[in-house]
């Protein structure tokens, strides 16, 4: 059992570092499990894929901050999250109204509520960030996206955006960041 947990922890470490083999292994195991369960719960394969991917994002976000010690098997944790996410989704589909006489079913997977909440808040945060980026205008939006989302180097960006060198591109980036900050914090206050 100790050995198992050790390899699970190792698997998680590789997953968070972006190791594709580790990700594919965890995902395919998880997807098989979730899609089988979803078939029983009235969801289709697309739902299963969505839920499965979202549950792995919850795990990823939680462990990349380094505050996650595995106490159960990866798959156990992921499956609990997936179930919880699905019940939440079901609640949402019924337009936020839970049919009163079926309330008990929705409480089964009330586990890991904090993790899901943190995840949802993060999603909203990133969404607001994307919205602020969209309002930023060009070339700032593309420049920042190129650096932060597509992981391009400043040299590359200087070449792409027609700056004479990386330092000039950097100065431009700082200006863009200042403007983004203004926009972002003004949208957040609402």
């Amino acid at each position: 059992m100790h050995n198992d947990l050790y390899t699970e922890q190792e698997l998680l470490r590789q997953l968070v570092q972006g190791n594709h083999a580790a990700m594919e292994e965890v995902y395919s195991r998880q997807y098989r499990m979730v899609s089988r369960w979803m078939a029983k719960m009235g969801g289709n394969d697309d739902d299963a894929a969505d839920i499965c991917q979202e549950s792995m994002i919850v795990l990823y976000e939680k462990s990349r901050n380094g505050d996650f010690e595995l106490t159960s098997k990866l798959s156990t944790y992921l499956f609990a999250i997936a179930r919880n996410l699905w019940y939440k989704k079901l609640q949402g589909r019924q337009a936020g109204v839970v049919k009163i006489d079926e309330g008990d079913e929705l409480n089964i997977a009330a586990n890991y509520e904090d993790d899901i909440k943190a995840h949802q808040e993060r999603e909203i945060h990133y969404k607001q960030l994307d919205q602020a980026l969209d309002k930023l205008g060009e070339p700032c939006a593309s420049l920042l996206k190129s650096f932060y989302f597509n992981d391009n180097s400043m040299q590359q960006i200087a070449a792409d955006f027609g700056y004479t060198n990386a330092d000039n591109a950097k100065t431009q980036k700082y200006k863009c960041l200042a403007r983004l900050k203004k926009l972002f914090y003004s949208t957040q206050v609402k």
Partner: protein
Amino acid sequence: MYNKNIWELAEAWVDGSMHAADKQLLDERKQADPAFAAEFRDAVNMLRSLQGSGDHKRFKNALAEAHQSATAQQPGTIVPKTISLVRNHWRTAAIAASIAIITSLATFWIAQHNNNKIASQYSLLRRDLETYKRSQNKIIRDIKEQATVTPQLEARYTGTGFALTNDGYLVTSYHVISGADSVYIQNRDGNYYKTHIVAFNEATDVVVLKVEDKKFRFSKQDVPYSIAKSKKKLGARVFTLGFPQDEIVYNEGYISAKNGYNGDSSQYRLDIPAGPGQSGSPVADASGNIIGIITGKESESEGTTYAVASEAIIDLLNSVPEKNKIRLNAYSKLGKLGREQQIEKMEYYTCAIKVYKK
């Protein structure tokens, strides 16, 4: 350090590439200048958010790729399902088996020892097996009263319904009875009567049922209330009677919005407590006109309840051939009574709905 751009500093700070000397200078400056400290903190947060969002997006894309390769696998490589199905289901099976054992033991025990001790033992059981409260209850009632018609199984769902006519036409929420094998009502005396569906509208969540027994009457007198034909005003005081438990329960509140969930104009939003089992309950205004049927509640907040406006009943009745058999009162006969008397009268025409499913 002072000539460096704040973003350059923040970037170095986040990367962890800042020199120790610079770090110290930065700390001193932050201490001396709180405005700078706040700005610096925002800058750091901004950068962390951007990096986090980038990682998040890349991870998402990688997941989508992983999904592609997971589903592109040949079907031959899938592990035989029989073994893993057993493994997946053993918990459910074990729980089901233990519930079956507990239930049958309890039934056997109650049947064997029909004496005074039952009451105390029973209340213990009820605490432990909250869900089985109703079925256990019924077993006891069977033994004690030998009721004439009692369904064999335990009810899967319960709701509330109310009479349209004294001879057995009644209304409840469609979702209470949807997919049912059979629907019974339990009247004020505790007797069960089988019903069939006369008409329903899934969209407005209303169904009209009829008690099959031709001799059935809700009470000696005709239905005393009327069904409102138009919507009541915002703030109107309302009350409801329902069966969240075996006993009838009274609640009161007010119309808190003229439209229901997401502005649905066929509903009201009410500020009134409601719990499981109260779907289908009548909502009446101060003079005893039925203005709606409870249909659901907001899952997030307590006390916010949604009711289908009573016009939905009228519309549904107009669409059925039986409409001539269903005469509704033009006026409520409860208008001049106090609340206790109103409730006393309405109790006869409010019933629990028991839904059976295989």
